[in-house]
Structure formats: C-alpha cells, structure tokens
C-alpha cells in the first residue's frame, strides 16, 4: 500500500460491480483508484478491511475473494447497521474508503499439502469463500477439499449459485460442495446443520485442516462433531467477529478473552485455533 504515516488513512476504491446475493447481502467488486496500489495490494484469506463512507462511519468487513486475483477484490456486505445500509445504496462507479488488510488471516502455509474442510454457517461463508477461492486458484497445493455451506433457508445460502455452478468442475477436481439448510421445507437439497454433514466430507480427518466460521453458539457442537470424526484439534481454526473501530489494536472494542489470554481480535485474530478457543472463556 502507498506509504502514509497515518494508519487510519483511507484509500479510495471504486465499486466496479454490485450483485445482490440475498435480500440482505450484496457482493461488491472493488478496485483501488490508485493503480499502483490496486496491482500491489494483497492479503491473506481470513483478513479484513475497514470500509469507510465519509460522514457515516467505518466498519470491518472480511474480504471474500482470492488474493491470487490481483487488481480487484470482493466484499460481501450484510445490511445490518448505519454504514452497511448506506453502502447498500451505492452503485457501480461510486467510491468508498478502504484501509487494511488487517488481522492474522488463516495460516494458508499450514493448510498446504493437507485436505481442507470448510464449514460455514450463515454469513460465515464470507471469509471462507476467500480460503476456498484461494485453494481453487492454487489447486495443486492442496489435497481434497470440502465446503459445507449452511443457512436457515435456501435463499439465505450465500454464494449458493456460484457453488452450484462449480459442481462439475468441482467433481473433476476432488472438491465436494455440500449445501444444507435447517428450516426450509421447500428446499430440495440437504437439510440439517453443517456439522451433521461432516461425515460426508471427502477430506481425510487424519490429514486435514479445518476452517470454521459461523455464529458463536454453533462452534461447540461443530467442534464435537469434528473431533468425534477424528479431525486433529490442532488443525481446527475459527474466525471471530467483534465490534471494531480501528482494526489496528487500539480502540479496544474487540478486546476479548480472559485474564490469562487477553486478545485484540483485530490484530491477534480474527483467526484462532481450537485450543485457544476452548481454554479462553469469552472468546466465543
């Protein structure tokens, strides 16, 4: 990124495309106005950026595209608050301010040469899509891949169509895509929570890295099922969400954990390992 001595400086990004994914989520394709930044800017799957609209505010948003695709990046944004509501009103051609990327991201080097199991519940698919796309872009580095994408209703499954469209290629590439819903009687496909489909993954529990993202209350039961199925707890990672104002370990809103393990989610996370989670009250 262009050098600025102010870590809170924002860099202008133009929206190239805007897609509606569900009634609440939109996918934005962005490019830095400064072409040097646009071409050199990179990130690790699991990292996030601060998105700013002058006059409205700033919010942390996970990047959901693959870092292999230079020149642009994608953000999937759910309309929930003041800033995201205003972002949803934007059209291609409009600009936002971006700073980052921030956070540790998933340890992709460690994921290499292993099978990858991605488990997403609801909006949890957003950061995991980045991992998935990265793995697809570097297909030769990884073993078998399974994505379990879950939501309450079929029309709430994020990236549902994209994942469906990939099915044929996926099969040829040893990638298994499982999409499941919990409350939709109309849904023709799989039903039940994400963890109930772990047994159908094409990944070898003895040689897999697992990335999980979903609502905090889902984690314990996902962990149980994973360990029951023989996955190595040391190779289970989750990514967490908090309120953040700075993204750089200052403002304190994302501080979580306990007195022996106090962490700024923004710089020490948002990705944490299984043992960090189970030994630290307050992280999830």
């Amino acid at each position: 990124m262009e050098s600025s001595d102010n870590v809170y400086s924002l860099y202008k990004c133009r929206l190239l495309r805007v897609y509606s994914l569900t009634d609440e989520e939109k996918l934005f394709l962005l490019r830095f106005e400064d072409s040097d930044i646009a071409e050199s800017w990179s990130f690790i799957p699991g990292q996030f950026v601060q998105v700013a609209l002058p006059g409205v505010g700033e919010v942390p948003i996970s990047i959901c595209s693959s870092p292999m695709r230079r020149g642009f990046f994608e953000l999937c944004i759910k309309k929930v608050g003041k800033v995201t509501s205003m972002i949803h009103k934007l059209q291609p051609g409009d600009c936002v301010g971006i700073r980052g990327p921030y956070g540790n991201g998933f340890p992709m080097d460690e994921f290499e040469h292993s099978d990858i199991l991605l488990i997403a519940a609801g909006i949890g698919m957003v950061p995991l899509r980045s991992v998935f796309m990265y793995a697809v872009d570097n297909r030769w580095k990884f073993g078998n891949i399974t994505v379990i994408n879950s939501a309450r209703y079929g029309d709430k499954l994020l990236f549902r169509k994209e994942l469906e469209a990939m099915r044929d290629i996926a099969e040829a590439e040893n990638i298994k895509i499982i999409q499941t819903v919990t409350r939709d009687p109309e849904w023709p496909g799989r039903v039940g929570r994400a963890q109930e489909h772990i047994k159908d993954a094409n990944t070898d529990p003895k040689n897999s890295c697992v990335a999980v993202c979903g609502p905090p209350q889902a984690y314990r039961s996902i962990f149980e099922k994973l360990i029951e199925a023989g996955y190595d707890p040391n190779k289970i990672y989750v990514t967490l969400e908090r309120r953040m104002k700075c993204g750089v370990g200052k403002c304190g809103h994302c501080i979580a954990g306990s007195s022996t393990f106090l962490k700024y989610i923004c710089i020490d996370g948002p990705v944490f390992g299984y043992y960090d989670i189970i030994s630290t009250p307050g992280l999830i």
Partner: protein
Amino acid sequence: MRYLKLGSRNIDEFLGRISNYGDLYAPQKISEKFYDYRKVEDISQVEFNYNRTITPAKKYFIPPKHEMFEFDMETGEYTETMGDVKPFVLFGLHACSIVALRILDGVYLNEYPDKYYAARRKAGIIIGISCLPDEYCFCNLRRTDFVDIGFDLFLHELPDGYLIRVGSERGHEIVDENMDIFEEVSNDDIENFKKFEKKRHEMFKYEGSFDNLRYILELTENSPLWDEESEKCLGCGNCTMTCPTCRCYDVQDLPDIDGKHGKRIRFWDSCQFRSHGLVAGGHNFRETKKDRFINRYVCKNAYFYPLGTSYCVGCGNCTYFCPAGIDFLKNLIKIRDVVGEVAHGEQ
C-alpha cells in the same frame, strides 16, 4: 545512571527553567480534595505532594476528544488535521503513571503506530516525582512502584531538596544546559534517599504478590462476588476514565449540515457502556452490567507481556473515584485469598 541533587532553594528556579522547554503542565489542586494536571500559569500552584489526579496523564497523549480527519463527502477525500505538536513538559508523574504510559506505548506504538499518539509522545518531556502511598495505593503488588525507564528526569524527595535520576538523552541535555542549579549528590543525600524508600515501602497497606491473580480470577468467574459488586455499579465509566491505562476510544463521523464536509472525531470510550461490545444487528458481547463489570477486572489483570506487568498499575484511581464506593483492590484480595481466612498480608 546519572544522579544529581536539586536543593530546596532551586526548586522554583528549576520549574522556571523546565518551562523553557515547552508549556508546563503539573498537578494542581482543583477543588477541596482533588488534584489534576493543569497548565502552569503560576509555579506556586504546582503541587509536589499529591496522591492522585482525577484525570490521568494519558489525556496529554490521547486527548479526551479530538479530531482525526476532515473529509469531503463529494470527493471522498480525507484530510488529516493534526498540526505540529509543540513540545511540552509534563511535571510530577508518579512511578505508576510512568509505567502506565509505557503500557500505552506498547499499544499505541505497536506495528501500527498511532500518529496522533506518537507525535504527542515525542513532544512530551516527562518529569517524574517520588510519592508516599495512601490506603488506595497498591503499586507495590503490581511492581510498578519504582521505574527504571520511561522518564526524562525523576525527582526523589529529600529533606532539603530532590535527588534526581536522569533517564534519557533529553534528560541529560536538560541537566547539562542548567548545571548551575544542580549539585552533586552527597553521602547524606544517599542515606536520605534510602530512608525515604524504606519509609515508602513500610507505608503500603498490603504486601505479597498479585502475579498469580490472573489465573485465580479466571478460575473464579462464577464467584457470587461478581453479582454482589456489579449490583452496586452505576455503569458510569468513572473507573475507566480515571484509569491511567484504559485506552478504549470511540470514533464518530460528524457530517456538516451542508452535506459536503464533515469531520471524524474520536473520544474516550468505556467498556462499562452498553454499546462497547454491541455489533450491528444487535448482538452484544457484553450484554449485562455484570458482564461489563467483570470485563474490566479481566482486562486490568491480564498481563502486558512486553513489560511483564499487568495492565493495572495499582494506582487506586478506580476505587478512589468510584461514586458507588466499589473497592477494586478489596475485591481482588477477596478473590485471591482463601475463603474464610483473614486477608493475607493486611497490616
């Protein structure tokens, strides 16, 4: 380390000289019982013997409320508005306050240095002063009652002046440029320094160690103490605002009525406020008053590893300035000690 003596007769002169290095701020009596750092207009107002200030020294480095940027809503340009920070002299910090600033350094000058903090920190000359504890102080338990670094000069009280420790290059320069008001340290001064230190140690109400406290705290999250004490809490945030290491801030965009301009400001926030852990969509990571109450105990007793000390420096401000009379230290001791036994180390 370099040591010098400042004789009583030269104290006013010393204050005058240091104010040549920038605007001078020092503890002053602001009301019947309270002290606070204020700009020194009259050196006779400088208070050498005070226990604590109602606003911690952090206010000079992280102002309670300040502007970060001005922005143009039409072009999306953000312009940084902090001008040059003029040099200033902060006189009269106690050891715990200096450790507190070093903790803030660790946070604000990490791999993402905060420019607003860094500029003020660079501009500030820090002059420490020795103190005697009152019943609220427990810096000894936090091992922050004596500082090795983090100051330019540190003054230790003697019966006839101050023994000065020089703690930085800037400190050496100040001393070198004003040698005429300093003397060499005599054997008597050394004995008096030792006497003062002994007296200081003897005055602490509690002794022992708090090093294992963070583990005990973690193990006792279900203690009924948290219900009882949080019940008294007003959620007013006085504890965090007066804490020298509490550093949470909030950011707000203030658009102008013209719809074209505006500014981004930041101001002190507190984990005791409901919105602190609230995310868009309504989930709150610290939903109840009790959650927020415990959060402060957890956060303050966690270790700041670069310094090997807890985020709490034992200054006693949160207890002294609590309108509900909640005693932070007593609660920690209750948590630490064996149920049913008399408080360990109480004198």
